[in-house]
């Protein structure tokens, strides 16, 4: 349901972007949804991607997010044709491409290492995909220069990749991808080798580029900030299994399970083993209790064992707090302060509050309170979220 809404939003955004940047950029419009249908890929018997079902709408920028080894890159390589699925199907533009060679899939990929051709000049690198499609020389040249121009590479056309900085190489890789207007862009952690400032800039550039071209994009990253800021929707994976697909805000506010809750956010959601207090909308945890909203309390009644979750920004230190804790560490992050506490049973708890609030001393005993209606309820069995805010 949330997915459908997000796709509608994608289309709106494309129309806005198209109105601003000219419709002609895309050439003839070709529908290019990308879909995984029960796609499974095993390496040495272990499933790197496990029965993945996922639809990426035409023109959508979908981010595949997860810790390293979660199967997100393998999923991307399945679309590129660099890996063959052991089970299930991959389709591009409504056509099953399981048996289609990478060269015939009409997708463009940006690799983490950029994978530029080291023996070719920047111009020849960008032209390479066009050359493979027998595009006439003058048109090839024109389009390569156009792509280079749009990424600020015009002065570097004669250079070899080894003469470029990391950021410039990255842009050459992008230019090589956009030069032929493929059905889909596949990006494998393209920003991970850039320094922080450049990463921020390039992130914005990629978002703008994708909005302008309206090309279906599958973007792989382990960086949740990148995912939150870039994706129309985010698909979170863990151990080869898709955990949740949703728009960034939904993913953050309504995580499907404890893994997603803890993986998103920096730091992630606090998760505490709990017991429902009989007859009261509150959960007993180590060192006190946390109030549950109405829906959450009803859901908690069904869960045994029970785990409650609350985001650091929904906790605050207050003498009237319902939870007793000891301060382990106080970190100033500029506008905010992160207080790492320990509960009676040694569980860690992070509280985030305004830098202007009084700061506790390390080792001090404090009371922690949760804002009303912010506590999520998960089953302790498989981590599924049963209820909470929203």
């Amino acid at each position, binding site marked *: 349901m949330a997915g459908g809404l997000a796709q509608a939003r994608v289309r709106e955004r494309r129309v806005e972007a198209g109105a601003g940047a000219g419709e002609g950029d895309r050439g003839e419009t070709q529908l290019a949804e990308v879909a995984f249908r029960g796609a499974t890929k095993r390496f040495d018997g272990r499933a790197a991607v496990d029965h993945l079902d996922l639809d990426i709408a035409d023109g959508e920028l979908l981010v595949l997010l997860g810790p390293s080894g979660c199967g997100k890159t393998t999923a991307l390589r399945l679309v590129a044709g660099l890996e063959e699925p052991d089970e299930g199907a991959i389709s591009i533009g409504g056509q099953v491409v399981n048996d289609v060679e*990478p060269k015939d899939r009409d997708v463009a990929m940006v690799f983490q290492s950029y994978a*530029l051709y*080291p023996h070719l000049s920047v111009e020849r690198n960008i032209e*390479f995909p066009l050359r493979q499609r027998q595009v006439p020389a003058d048109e090839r040249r024109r389009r390569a220069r156009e792509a280079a121009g749009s990424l600020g590479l015009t002065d570097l056309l004669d250079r070899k990749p080894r003469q470029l900085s990391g950021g410039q190489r990255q842009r050459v890789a992008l230019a090589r991808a956009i030069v032929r207007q493929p059905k889909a862009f596949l990006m494998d952690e393209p920003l991970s080798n850039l320094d922080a400032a450049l990463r921020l800039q390039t992130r914005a550039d990629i978002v703008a580029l994708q909005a302008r071209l309206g090309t279906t994009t599958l973007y792989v990253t382990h960086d949740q900030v990148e995912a939150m800021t870039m994706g129309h929707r985010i698909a979170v994976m863990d151990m080869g299994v898709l955990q949740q697909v949703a728009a960034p805000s939904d993913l953050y506010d309504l995580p499907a399970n404890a893994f997603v809750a803890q993986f998103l956010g920096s730091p992630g959601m606090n998760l505490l083993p709990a017991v429902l207090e009989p007859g009261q909308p509150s959960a007993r945890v180590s060192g006190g209790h946390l109030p549950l909203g109405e829906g959450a309390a009803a859901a908690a009644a069904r869960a045994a064992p029970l785990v409650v979750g609350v985001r650091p920004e929904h906790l605050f230190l207050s003498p009237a707090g319902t939870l007793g804790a000891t301060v382990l560490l106080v970190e100033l992050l500029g506008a905010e302060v992160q207080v790492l506490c320990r509960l009676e049973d040694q569980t860690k708890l992070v509280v985030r509050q305004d830098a202007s609030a009084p700061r506790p001393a390390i080792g001090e005993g404090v009371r922690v309170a949760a804002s009303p209606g912010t506590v999520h309820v998960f089953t302790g069995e498989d981590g599924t979220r049963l209820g909470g805010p929203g």
Partner: protein
Amino acid sequence: MLPARSRRVRAVREAALGYLLVLPALAVFGVFVFYPFAQNFRLALYETPPYPGLPSRYVGLHQVGQVLTSSSFLQSLGATLLFVVIVVPAGLLGGLLLAVAAHRRLRGMTVYRLVFSSTVVSSVAVSALVFGTLMDPVVGLLPWLGLNPSPPILQNTTWALPAIAVMAVWQFLGLAFVVMSAGLSAVPEEVLEAARVDGASERTVFWRVTVPLLSPTIFFGLVVATIYAFGTFGQVDILIGYSNAAFEHVNLLVYDILNTIQVTKTPGQAAVLSIALFVLTLGVTLVQLRFIERRVHYGS
């Protein structure tokens, strides 16, 4: 900071230690390489009589001109160049193709790799005997296959040289395979994958991406193969010999040098021949370095 004098003393000490460490190697090379090498140039200027005990006579460059214009030298030079032209490309291409074939993750591939690289460690004498048997006009494999020219292959003025070249190529394949395999494993897989996604066929990936990225390896192989081919003589010595009917057509330069010492017993002339071979090998290598290396792409 140390005063200038003590710094100088330290520098001298370090240099002295360096020379001391080099000394053993220098002594060995001096006695067995540099001194004979220099003596060879002196020897080329003397006419040495074929009978031991007689004094040699200084003839200056006269002997050099005489040897280098002799018909036997020119014939030997021609045979050697033809031999190099066959062996070098065939050896390199063969090694490259084998390396590409073995460069995939398949079960049992290590066995193939072992087999392909085995010619590196097989002796010239053994392989020459095996090939000699294969080409034997009576019991050989080639006659059994219907390839039985008259005179027999190894006495045939047309076929003896190509036959020796085939053996040399086979012998060189192992080294070429090992070198090319090492080069291939250094080619980044992602670049090849990028080319595939960019629309390149496997053939284009090979010729437009793999080969250029392998060019330093191929160039190294070219230089080594050339030197190897110029230096071949074992197969000729074992299978042909100077009494063979086709001898003059397979008289590679190194073998000619050997013969000039052992059969005609004129070391002065042999010295001229070995200088000629040295200059030729050096010249070809320099030309390769000067002109072909320009097209080599060394990675980032």
